[in-house]
């Protein structure tokens, strides 16, 4: 997302720049986007898919929230265990590794949905609207294709880990179970980018993601 209020467009257009106190380090994301936004890609026959998409979005948000809080609880519990009970939680490290994978790969799709992936858009931003739109369609399609490819490779990889039967030493959980998020996350991300291409092809504005319009008027979006 970061490029929408790019310097190239002139800091003056960036409300944050006008009022530095607002350009806070605020890191939170408004994820309950207006219905019209979420539905951007899902018009006509695609409407039922919109419901599914919303469900996926809510699931991702829940996974991120729970994942991060679980990491915090798990790590704090480990410290408390060591200090108060003189007993480290040996599963703590394995649980955290699992949570990092979970959060990363659930978050990739979520970030794609909200146009939050980091880009260097200095050149892209200089292009006229039409060209930007065309480029965005190409970027979205190629990115989507690469995500599908990774979904396939990660499926193969997870399957081969399943084949070896490797287990986590402490929790004795089969490693492949901790990895099932990979193919899923990449696939959801791929779908997000295909949808982005679709929205750009069917709508007048330039869309950065299904929910985020990449245009001058939109610079104050909270995302």
């Amino acid at each position, binding site marked *: 997302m970061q490029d929408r209020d790019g310097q*190239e467009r002139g800091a003056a257009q960036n409300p944050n720049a006008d009022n530095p106190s607002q350009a806070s380090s605020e890191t939170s994301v408004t994820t309950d986007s207006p219905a019209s936004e979420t539905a951007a890609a899902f018009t006509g026959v695609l409407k039922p898919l919109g419901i599914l998409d919303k469900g996926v979005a809510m699931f991702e948000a829940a996974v*991120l929230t729970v994942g*991060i809080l679980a990491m915090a609880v798990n790590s704090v519990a480990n410290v408390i265990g060591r200090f108060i009970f003189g007993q480290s939680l040996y599963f703590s490290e394995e649980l955290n590794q699992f949570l990092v994978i979970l959060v990363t790969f659930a978050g990739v799709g979520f970030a794609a949905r909200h146009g939050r992936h980091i880009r260097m858009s200095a050149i892209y931003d200089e292009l006229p609207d039409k060209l930007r739109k065309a480029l965005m369609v190409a970027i979205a399609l190629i990115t989507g294709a690469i995500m599908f490819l990774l979904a396939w490779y990660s499926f193969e990889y997870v399957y081969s880990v399943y084949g070896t039967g490797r287990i986590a030493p402490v929790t004795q959980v089969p490693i492949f179970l901790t990895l099932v998020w990979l193919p899923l996350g990449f696939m959801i991300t791929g779908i997000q980018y295909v949808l982005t291409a679709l929205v750009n092809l069917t709508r007048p504005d330039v869309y950065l993601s299904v929910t985020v319009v990449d245009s001058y008027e939109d610079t104050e979006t909270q995302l």
Partner: protein
Amino acid sequence: MATAMIVTMIVLLLLGFPMMVPLIAATLIGFLIYLPIPPDIMIQQMLAGIRPSALIAVPMFILAADIITKGQSADRLIDMVMRFVGHVRGGLGVATAASCTLFGAVSGSTQATVVAIGGPLRPRMLKSGYSDSFTLALIINSSDIAMLIPPSIAMIIYGVVSGTSISELFIAGVGPGLLILLLFSAYAYVYARINDIPTEPKASWNERMQAVAGAVWPLGFPLIVVGGIYGGIFSPTEAASVCVGYAILLEMLIFRSLKLSDVFDIAKSTGLITAVVFILVAAGAAFSWVISFERIPQAILGGLGLAEAGPYTVLIAISIAFFVGCMFVDPIVVILVLVPIFAPLVDGLGLDPVLVGTIITLQVAIGSATPPFGCDIFTAIAIFKRPYIDVIRGTPPFVVILLMVSALLIIYPPIALFLRDLAFR
């Protein structure tokens, strides 16, 4: 092959692709066109990139920083600092640089520093009139001084790979680290002068004491981080999670500034930022792996004919190799791969391995803050939601300072070795 990978990466980057794509595409080119091995391994290496358990400190410090920024702790702490330095020209800039250095030194994580110190202090600096690009560059570059001040993972890895005393490395890093902090502070002062950043009226001691009293609870944070880690109570990773626990207690129960739902929202956004940064860490790890698997650095450096070079040439070559390597590849991998390649040269010339280690650590620190691929840059972009260009715009003067210190270190090694000799010789 290296050329094809790097060109692909840079072209896709400039076209405005999400940054994970240039990294992944370049890696895929390696796998699909050049390597005789299944591309599933790319997935394995992406996972390996986000496996180190110390990485947990990053989301934990993001979470803690966001909680205290949304609540009151950060404001109270900064108010206190401002009562003491607000009347000094460039005081806030210097305080920011020093805080980043201290926090980074202790936590060992430059990314966590960008978040934990940069998060709360950036709005204050903008309000005081510093430009955003200066502020961001100051935060990112000051955070990287962390690598030079113990405990430093980069130095531990170098020590193990090269067989150098880690204790000596730790001490040797302190001099250059403080020198850089000094120069950054001087630059902040000069910047404030030139841009005529207004100062605040000098606070009375009464006002100062009031501010300190208001910040008593939040002073627990520096206590946990600095006292907890240097006091041997927590590991840096643990300190991060203790900060989270303390932040939640403070803001929810004592200041009552946050509701449970706020904490949930903050956790969600922390998760998002973590994912955005970690997917790049993962993709970067896969990219590094291909480079390492194909022994590309060996091929490039083998062709340079450094065998007959003198000490200065070798030190400069080392600096450049690590600087360039860290621009594109994860610093730890760069150390693991390059140190053994240079080891015979260093031994042959009888160079002090502690000096070489300090120089290398410095280059690694610079590399993490320089484009195109620097973890701290990604973190800053994700946290502050600023465009890539904005985040790196203010960097050049800092890089110039850092390179100056590199040169000084080569010309005048006592900057690093003086303290070492004092302690060990």
